[in-house]
């Protein structure tokens, strides 16, 4: 088996559920036509809140009992994993199941299930004998990956990667590393989130003055707009099949893109505030690994979550890298459509841009009625899609609390 640090790793399948689409074609179509996925949702103790809620068919790949016993994150993972495998057209039945890895990024896991149990025992005077025996398997940090391994009969390594909102990218990065190490032959990787089912995330952002409000749900998530006022929390999942190029070519697989480079670093400066210097270092290091210059990047998908300060700081980082002599670099944001899908964010945001390798259209960042001058980056694609001369590279930023930064670069596959 030929694998090394130089092994070329390619994306061969995409499975996703987003608040505005349950397949890549549907998701992409809605990103090009300005369809938001944000709705109002009743949140325990808090009433009606803005949220991105997915409506995939939960019974397509699971029995009712699995849904009752498992978690929403597990269900999202199973749906996305199976959709990705189908999309890849890999002969799954013939694959050695111990050579498949599942690497799923999560911002958090267990809040939903713990809150539900506390609420449950509150109805029984907090008597813990009413606490579910499913609590532990539901809340272990590897739950989404473990449920996926159970559902698919995959016996290779299956675990989650906790990396706050940088986690979606981290799933792909870790899978790339494991494929290069020869640990597995096929990786199912990306990120998932069930965060709209936990009041704690909403309440936490609200206490931080970072939860978006708007009369019109579709207008609520507005990165770069002067009137932006915070995050819209979403659920979702984006999982990919990754393979070494030679394996993909041997079976004649469709190849969406090749992993070109990546980097992960830490701010080491604050619990919640981002650090533009470290973000810029992360982007530069990913470019170096990809052996690309800033001007070689054609799409930069921003992490921007529509917090007043965070957007400015990311723009500062992007300006530092792409501010000069990058005439073919265009910048967009996917959260403006779907909100912040937490652990799924990076994975979904990459997926939404992948079709640009084919159609050369950069989906916009919507809801920018009054561009914040501090976010006025050159190449920002606002409100309407833009057809460009070429898209050969996509750089995807995902950053998270406690100062974790991840950047992933993919490029058009050229044999």
């Amino acid at each position, binding site marked *: 088996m030929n694998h090394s640090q130089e092994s070329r790793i390619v994306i061969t399948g995409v499975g996703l559920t987003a608040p505005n689409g349950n397949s890549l074609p549907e998701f992409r179509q809605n990103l090009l036509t300005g369809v938001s996925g944000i709705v109002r949702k009743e949140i325990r103790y808090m009433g009606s809140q803005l949220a991105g809620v997915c409506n995939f068919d939960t019974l397509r790949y699971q*029995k*009712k*009992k699995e849904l*009752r*016993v498992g978690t929403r994150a597990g269900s999202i993972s199973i749906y996305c994993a199976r959709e990705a495998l189908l999309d890849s057209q890999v002969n799954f039945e013939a694959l050695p199941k111990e050579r498949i890895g599942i690497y799923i990024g999560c911002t958090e896991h267990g809040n939903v299930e713990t809150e539900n149990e506390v609420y449950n025992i509150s109805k*029984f005077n907090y008597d813990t004998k*009413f606490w*579910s*025996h*499913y609590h532990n398997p539901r809340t272990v940090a590897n739950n989404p990956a473990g449920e996926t391994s159970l559902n698919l009969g995959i016996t290779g390594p299956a675990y989650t990667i906790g990396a706050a909102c940088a986690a979606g990218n981290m799933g792909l990065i870790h899978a790339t590393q494991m494929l290069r190490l020869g640990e597995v032959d096929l990786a199912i990787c990306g990120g998932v989130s069930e965060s709209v089912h936990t009041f704690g995330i909403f309440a936490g952002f609200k206490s931080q003055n970072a939860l978006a409000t708007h009369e019109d749900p579709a207008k609520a998530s507005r990165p770069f707009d002067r009137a932006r006022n915070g995050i819209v929390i979403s659920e979702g999942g984006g999982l990919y099949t990754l393979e070494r190029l030679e394996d993909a070519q041997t079976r004649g697989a469709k190849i969406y893109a090749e992993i070109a480079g990546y980097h992960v670093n830490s701010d080491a400066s604050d619990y919640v505030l981002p650090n533009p210097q470290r973000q810029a270092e992360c982007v530069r290091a990913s470019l170096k690994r990809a052996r690309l210059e800033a001007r070689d990047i054609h799409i930069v998908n921003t992490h921007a979550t529509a917090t007043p300060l965070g957007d400015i700081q990311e723009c500062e980082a992007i300006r530092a890298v792409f501010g000069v002599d990058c005439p073919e670099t265009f910048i967009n944001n996917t959260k403006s459509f779907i909100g912040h899908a937490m652990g799924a964010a990076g994975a979904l945001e990459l997926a939404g841009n992948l079709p640009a390798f084919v159609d050369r259209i950069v989906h916009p960042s919507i809801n920018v009625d009054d561009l914040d001058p501090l976010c006025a980056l050159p190449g920002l694609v606002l409100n309407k899609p833009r057809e460009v001369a070429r898209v050969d590279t996509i750089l995807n930023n995902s950053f998270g609390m406690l100062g974790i930064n991840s950047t992933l670069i993919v490029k058009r596959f050229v044999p």
Partner: protein
Amino acid sequence: MTKDECKQVVLDIIADIAPDEDLSNVKPDVRLRDQMQLDSMDFLDIVMELRKRHSIEVPEADYIQLASLDSCAEYLTPKFNALAG
């Protein structure tokens, strides 16, 4: 409560914890695990739902009494009637 009513109580619980199962033809004298997909966690669910819905406690040593619908009825009916009394 009659034994038949007690069996229906148990079936109602099983309908919720094993929603994929067809319960229209459950044989009362055959072990539940032999006629549907129920694992040990599911039996803990039955115990939990008896506790939640009906304030019936089943000690671990008595779990074996929940093996079939008949044994459930034999074991649980007096408990229900004691509560009602």
